[in-house]
């Protein structure tokens, strides 16, 4: 199961800088980063090449980090790709808690990272409907 690192962060100057500095020191590459926030605080979500190492380093440095299981779906980078994934999950009653996408280096494939409430089941549903999921290794070695 693919993992992403979620970090609790206050909306204060310098926090993101400190966070990325910790990862840099550990030689960790960031594949994708999003921030979902409330007014005074937010959650920084990091897709990295070594989530376990990143998690340990951030915890050690006092960050409130959490290792979150996610699904990485390969989409054709053309209109309707995202809609298809959402519909498949929606039809099966799986709630998407958060999602973000990024484009693969070949510029043709997009990866959609989704956080859902019923995880192993959601994976099976997507696979059964012909969607391709990235394994951990594939995701981290992008």
């Amino acid at each position, binding site marked *: 199961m693919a993992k992403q690192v*979620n970090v*609790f*962060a*206050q909306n204060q100057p310098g*926090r993101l800088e400190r966070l990325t500095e910790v990862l840099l020191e550990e030689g960790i590459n960031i594949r994708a980063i999003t921030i*979902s*926030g*409330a007014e*005074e*605080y*937010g*959650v920084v*979500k990091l897709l990295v090449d070594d989530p376990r190492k990143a998690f340990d380093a951030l*915890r050690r440095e*006092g*960050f*409130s*980090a*959490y*290792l*979150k299981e996610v699904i990485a779906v390969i989409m054709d980078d053309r209109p309707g790709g995202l809609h298809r994934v959402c519909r498949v999950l929606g039809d099966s009653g799986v709630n998407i*808690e*958060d999602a973000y996408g990024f484009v693969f280096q070949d510029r043709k494939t997009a990866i959609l990272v989704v*956080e859902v409430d019923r995880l192993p089941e959601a994976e099976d549903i997507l696979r059964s409907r012909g969607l391709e999921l990235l394994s951990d290794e594939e995701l981290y070695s992008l």
Partner: protein
Amino acid sequence: MKGEYWDAEMELLSREEIGALQFKRLRETLERCGRSPFYREWFASAGFDPARVRSMRDLGALPCMDKNTLRGDDPRRFLTVGLDEVVRMHSSSGTTGQATVIFHTAADIEAWAQLVARCMYMTGVRRSDVFQNMMGYGLFTGGLGFHYAAERIGAMVIPAGSGNSKRQIQLMREFHTTVVHVIPSYALYLLEVFAESGLDPRSDTDLRIAFIGAEPHTEGLRRRVEEGYGVRAYNSYGLSEMCGPGVAFECPEQRGMHVWEDSFYLEVLDPDTLEPVGEGEEGELVFTSLNREAMPLLRYRTRDLAFVYPDECPCGRAHRRISRIKGRSDDMFIVKGVNIFPMQVEKVLLGVLGVGSNYQIVLDTVKSMDEMRVLVEVSGELWHGEVKELNELRRRITDELRQEILVTPKVELVEPGSLPAGEGKAVRVLDKREHVKGVEDG
């Protein structure tokens, strides 16, 4: 027709007369305590024989009581009269299980009303006055204590209660209020409401006297109230365990509060050793009630720190004067007139989070009002990585704190390690409020 004094006989006692009256009333109080199941055990466990008390000093053989002593037993076991004799109860702020209950007989209520009447009359309140009581009524003693006293004097009472600023101003103007009783920080806030309404209390009201109590404040804040309203403002001291307001009060000299020593025996003790401090030194105020029937308290620790003025008061009253309250010997603090202990916040956090978390209470003055913020560190163990979880956490902490401390704080979630670690009030409570900043005496 009374002259300058409400109770000249008591107010003008000499030091010697006060001493003699105190001893006589102490003997009566001790005898009365013999009828209370609690005190019989209390005396026995201390090896204290009330019959052998020969002077006020002998009282020192008895251990001090405090809030925990009261909480530790059924309040009815403190009674020296039958429950039939009790006409009222009051309770200190705090929630169920933490509150302390104080019972009153009809004579207790009357004695209390007379004491507060003495205080109000001393500052110039008369029959012709209109008294608007802007304190909370109910279990809190600040409301009813002044209400009864003003009626004894014969002033007209407007039992306005707390809050509803526009209505307060409307009442003041419609009924020509001359005297108010108000929490000092609320008095400042109300000044802003006056200004927003285009009114100046100095010319648009008939106010001349303000009683400000229930919350520690500085000399500077008093002056701001006096200048803003065009009144003389007097400091008031009391605690529900002794009766409520009326334990000590400022005379027109405005330099220290006279403790009514015909009704209360005051000791100023070192909070650590419980030995008396030197003359004029700061210590914890410890009171013994001398004129209460239902539930007398002996050597009750207030946790309030103050000193006694060593000189005589020019007003001619020999009752000793205490300074403004300088602080507390425990970690209690007061927000909007409500007593709060950091332990209450800690208990709520433990309940909501399931584990202890580092936290800090920050008190500030925003638009002349108290603002209480509770900063809580969110450690990695406390959540599962979602924003909505954090929002939910904040909502629950806010709700449960409101139920526990009766004040709605602003809860902020902060990163681990961002708050100072350690124990004690100095670390847990950061008080940046104007009215408690640099408490000095005038």
